[in-house]
């Protein structure tokens, strides 16, 4: 077998593997059964909750991730490497461990004060947002930083010499140049938040109609041997996932000024 055929064969095998997994789902589900599960209030509630929580978590992650990424990309400061390393904690830590850490934190005196005086997180909807935020904030910062690293700081230097303040240079020059990368980062983080299970179930629990997101609904449906519901939820989740990946591919197209 030639070199080219070996490499291509591996790619095709992987494709068949994933495609086979997806196609096998349809073996157990009929058109009518699919529709019944889809319009069931519990399913719609899980979809709604997942989308809302993932959107909020992504918003907060980008709101803090963008300035943090800028600082890490542009400035030299003491402790930069330590911060940079800590951003990878969600990537090396199991989601359940992350969720458990959050749960433990809310049992400390500080955590209890936050819960009493501020927002209640444990086994509540804000807990879903927080768990998803904890999972994606580091990733968001890392992805946005990569986009910013590709943009020469020289552009901002010139913009400032031409009369722009550092804020103006950021939003007139750097932000438009990083926009495509930023959008791709947002979409990827949103997709990851949407599929987040471990941290969410640990912190927010799995209460149907209250804290049951799609991945949690899949788990509970499977645990109660409701295969039909499990499959429908998987298909919906995969559909959302593929849509977001396709959107990322679209944003990765050539810029008009390239």
């Amino acid at each position, binding site marked *: 077998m030639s070199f080219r055929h070996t490499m291509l064969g591996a790619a095709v095998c992987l494709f068949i593997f994933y495609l086979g997994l997806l196609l096998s789902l349809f073996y157990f589900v009929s058109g009518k059964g699919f529709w019944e599960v889809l319009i069931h209030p519990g399913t719609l509630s899980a979809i709604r909750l997942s989308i809302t929580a993932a959107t909020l978590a992504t918003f907060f992650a980008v709101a803090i991730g963008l300035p943090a990424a800028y600082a890490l990309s542009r400035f030299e400061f003491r402790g930069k490497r330590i911060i940079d390393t800590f951003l990878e904690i969600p990537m090396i830590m199991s989601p359940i461990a992350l969720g458990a850490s959050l749960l433990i934190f809310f049992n400390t005196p500080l955590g209890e004060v936050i819960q009493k005086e501020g927002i209640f997180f444990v086994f509540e909807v804000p807990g879903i947002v927080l768990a998803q935020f904890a999972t994606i904030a580091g990733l968001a910062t890392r992805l946005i930083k990569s986009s910013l690293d590709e943009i*020469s700081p*020289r*552009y901002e*230097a*010139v*913009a*400032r*010499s*031409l*009369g*722009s*303040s*550092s804020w*103006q240079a950021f939003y*007139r*020059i750097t932000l*438009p*140049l990083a926009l495509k990368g930023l959008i791709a980062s947002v979409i990827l983080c949103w997709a990851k938040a949407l599929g987040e299970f471990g941290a969410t179930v640990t912190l927010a629990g799995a209460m149907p109609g209250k804290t049951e997101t799609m991945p949690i609904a899949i788990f509970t449906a499977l645990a109660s041997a409701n295969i039909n519901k499990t499959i429908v939820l998987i298909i919906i989740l995969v559909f959302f996932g593929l849509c977001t990946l396709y959107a990322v591919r679209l944003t990765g197209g050539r*810029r*008009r*000024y*390239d």
Partner: protein
Amino acid sequence: MIRIEGLSILFETFKIMGLDITIEEKEFHSLLGPTGCGKTLILESIMGLRKPTKGKIWIGEREVQTLPPERREISYVPQDLALFPHLSVRENIFYGIKARNLDKQDYEDYVQLQIEEMKVGHLLERYPANLSGGEKKRVALLRALASKPKLLLLDEPLSGLDPAIKVEIQQLLKTLHSSFNPTILCVTHDFEEAYFLSDRITIFMDGKAEQVGKKDDIFLEPVSKKVAQFLGARNLYRAKILSKDEFMQRATLEVDGLQFSMPMQLCRDSIEVGKEVDLFIRPEEVMIIRKEKPVKESLKRNILLGKIMDITDKRRYQLINFQTMEGKINIEISIPNYAFRNLDLAIGKIVNVALREESLWVMS
């Protein structure tokens, strides 16, 4: 007038100590130094992007070193130009006017004139990615000049261009300077570029200004062997002062047994008998004497007999490697092509060479 006083920068391996530069209004001033000597750091400090360890910067009577870059009225054209890729050429050009909240109408005529002068009128709706190297340079210059800065900083403005475009942009810079009279500080490592463009030059080496002066003074009268070597000077010799005649104001120098007579005014520092100095013989001021022609009295003081060792065609001139019979000193002589054709020279030929007094320069 722009004054930079005692500018000191410590950054990584760079150490710039107490740099002084004064730039007159409308002057084209070049900071000439070898590659990697920290010239760009100096520009960044002047612009306000980097905080110098010490030093003051005045623009006119305004002290600006504590101001942020946007309030210094200094424009900057970096080596990579940094044209904003997401903005059209027109948007790039008017960026400074918009950012400084200047009335666009007040600048319209001025910018239009520059657009015509730089021949970029047909490029206004294009994006930087669709411009050639020369066009990008023009747009970057125009963008920097459009808002009438008090000082324009140019970082290696002619680097990375094809030879033909380089000549064109060089000429354009010259025309722009004479038409619009911006005050310019240009950093470059290319002494030919600096000589062509500048009114005055600061030679910057090893973290300090080695020499400041009018361009002719710099090239004809370098302060040290180091500067002379950097400027591409050939024919540098270690010489000893044998005697001096205060009445005639002349000195006699010796290089490997060969003696030269020269006016004391061509010595940079005081003449002390017995002192060792660096002698610089300018290749373009050395004459090969034709046998049939009478030699002027002033040339007779320094006539050397020797042999042509090598001839190199440098396209615009011929470079002759001449070795004196006495002392076996090698002297490079550059001769214009038309003169070379009349001299009938060949490798191995024995000739007489006369050193014009202007060909000699002594540095301690």
